C-alpha cells in the first residue's frame, strides 16, 4: 500500500489565538484573575473535544508594557496553564503585529489547518497611537489573517472604535463586559462557538458561527 506511509497521521488543527490585554488596569476589580480563570476553563473544555473533527490548538499573545507570546500555539491537551500578570501600558499594535506574523507563518499554522479563531480582549485604549492603526490595517489585509473568524470583548472603559475596526467586515459585534462576571460568559460563548465548529462536518463554514445578533450586554443565555 503505497499511499498510507506518506499521509499525515495527525488531525487537522483548528487554531484559537487569544490576544489579551494584560496592562496594569486589568488588575482593577480582579479582572486579570477572572480572565485567567476563564482562559483556563476554555482550555480545559477544549481538551475534552479531542475526538471531534479537528485538534484545537491554543495560542496566547499578551500586551501589557510589551507584546509577548504567553503561550505558543499548542494542542489544548498539551498546555500547562501559567496565569498571566497585569502590568504596564497597552501596546495593542505590537500585539496585532505578533498575531499576524504567527498566522502568516505556515510553519506555525499549516495551510491544512482550519480557519483560525482570533479573540481580542482589552479594557483600555492603545498606547501605541499612530502605530496600531497601521498594524491593524496590515492584519486585516494580510492573506491568511484576514480570513480568520474574529471575536472581540471590551471591558470597562475600553475604546469601542478599536474593536469595531478589528471586527470590520464581519457580522460580529463587540461584546461588552461591564463587570468581571461577563468576562467568563464571553469566554464561555467563544468556547461554545469553537466546540460547535469542531463537531461540525464543515468546520470552516461561516454557518457554524453563532448568531452575531447576540445580546451585547451578555445578559442572554449561552
Amino acid at each position: 500500500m503505497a499511499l498510507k506511509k506518506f499521509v499525515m497521521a495527525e488531525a487537522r488543527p483548528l487554531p484559537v489565538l487569544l490576544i489579551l490585554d494584560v496592562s496594569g488596569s486589568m488588575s482593577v476589580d480582579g479582572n486579570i484573575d477572572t480572565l485567567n480563570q476563564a482562559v483556563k476553563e476554555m482550555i480545559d473544555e477544549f481538551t475534552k473535544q479531542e475526538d471531534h473533527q479537528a485538534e484545537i490548538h491554543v495560542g496566547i499573545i499578551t500586551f501589557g508594557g510589551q507584546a509577548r507570546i504567553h503561550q505558543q500555539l499548542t494542542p489544548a491537551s498539551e498546555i500547562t496553564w501559567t496565569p498571566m500578570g497585569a502590568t504596564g501600558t497597552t501596546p495593542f499594535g505590537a500585539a496585532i503585529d505578533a498575531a499576524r506574523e504567527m498566522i502568516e507563518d505556515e510553519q506555525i499554522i499549516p495551510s491544512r489547518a482550519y480557519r483560525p479563531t482570533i479573540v481580542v480582549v482589552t479594557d483600555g485604549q492603545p498606547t501605541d497611537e499612530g502605530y496600531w492603526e497601521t498594524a491593524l490595517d496590515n492584519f486585516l489585509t494580510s492573506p491568511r489573517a484576514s480570513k480568520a473568524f474574529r471575536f472581540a470583548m471590551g471591558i470597562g472603559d475600553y475604546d469601542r472604535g478599536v474593536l469595531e475596526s478589528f471586527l470590520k467586515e464581519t457580522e460580529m459585534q463587540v461584546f461588552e463586559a461591564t463587570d468581571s462576571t461577563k468576562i467568563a460568559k464571553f469566554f464561555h460563548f467563544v468556547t461554545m462557538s469553537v466546540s460547535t465548529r469542531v463537531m461540525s462536518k464543515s468546520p470552516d463554514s461561516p454557518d457554524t458561527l453563532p448568531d452575531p445578533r447576540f445580546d451585547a450586554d451578555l445578559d442572554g443565555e449561552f
Partner: protein
Amino acid sequence: MNRKLDKPEYVGASVRGPSNAARKNLKQDAWDVFHRRWGTLGIVCDGLGSKPKSRLGALAACLAVKDMVNQVDQMNSLANLESHLNSIEQNWLDRIHPHTPNDCMTTCLFSLYTEEGWFGAQLGDGFLGALLTDGNIVTCAPDAELTFNLTHGLGDFSQVKTWRIFGPLPANDVHSFILATDGVSDDILLENYPMLLEELVKEYQPLIQMKRYQLLRRELWDWPTPHHLDDKTLLALWSTKST
C-alpha cells in the same frame, strides 16, 4: 501532430468523504482521463461542498477541458496553452446550463501530454505536480489566497481567477505526474510527493487497469488521517518510456 505519440499509463480513483456521507450527499469530486490522437488529458475536479450542484459542476469541468483541447487541436496550436484557458469556462457554462455558475462551482486541475511535452494547469486548491527523472518535483506557483479550505474555481466571478500553469516539460524528463483534490493533498507534505510517486508507479504499473482502480480506491477509503472529512481523488500518470 505526431500520430505515434505514446499513451501514458495511469491510475485514478475517487471516493466520497465522511462529510458528504454523513449528509447523504453524493461525492462531489470528479476525474477522467482521455486518450486522443493529440495526446493524453488527465483531469481532477473538486466541486465546492457548499454549492448545491457542485457534483454536476465537477463532472462538467472534466468535459469542458476536453472540449477546449479538442477545439484547440482543430487549430493545431496546443503549444500555447495559456491563451486557451479562458475557453474552458465558456465550455463549462454551456455544459452546466441551465444551472447557475454559483451553484456549480468547482476547482479544476489538468495535465496534458502532447508531442510538445507535459503541461499542468490548476484553478483552485488541490495538488498538481510533475516528478522529474532527476528527482525534483515541479508544481504550480503557490497562491496565497488558497488557504484554510478557501478556494476559487470555475463559476466564481467574485474575484479574478488565476490559472496557474507550467510546461511544456520534455517528455523524457518527466517520471510521472500527479493530480489530487485537497481531500488528499491537505494530508500529504510536499516533500513526500517524490517518494510517493515513485512507489505508486512501482506498485501499480504491473497491475491491470481494473486492479489499479480497485486498489487505489481501497487506499483512499482507508485514509489514515484522523477525523478526515473531504472527498478524495487522486490521479497519477506516467510514461513507460521514462519510468
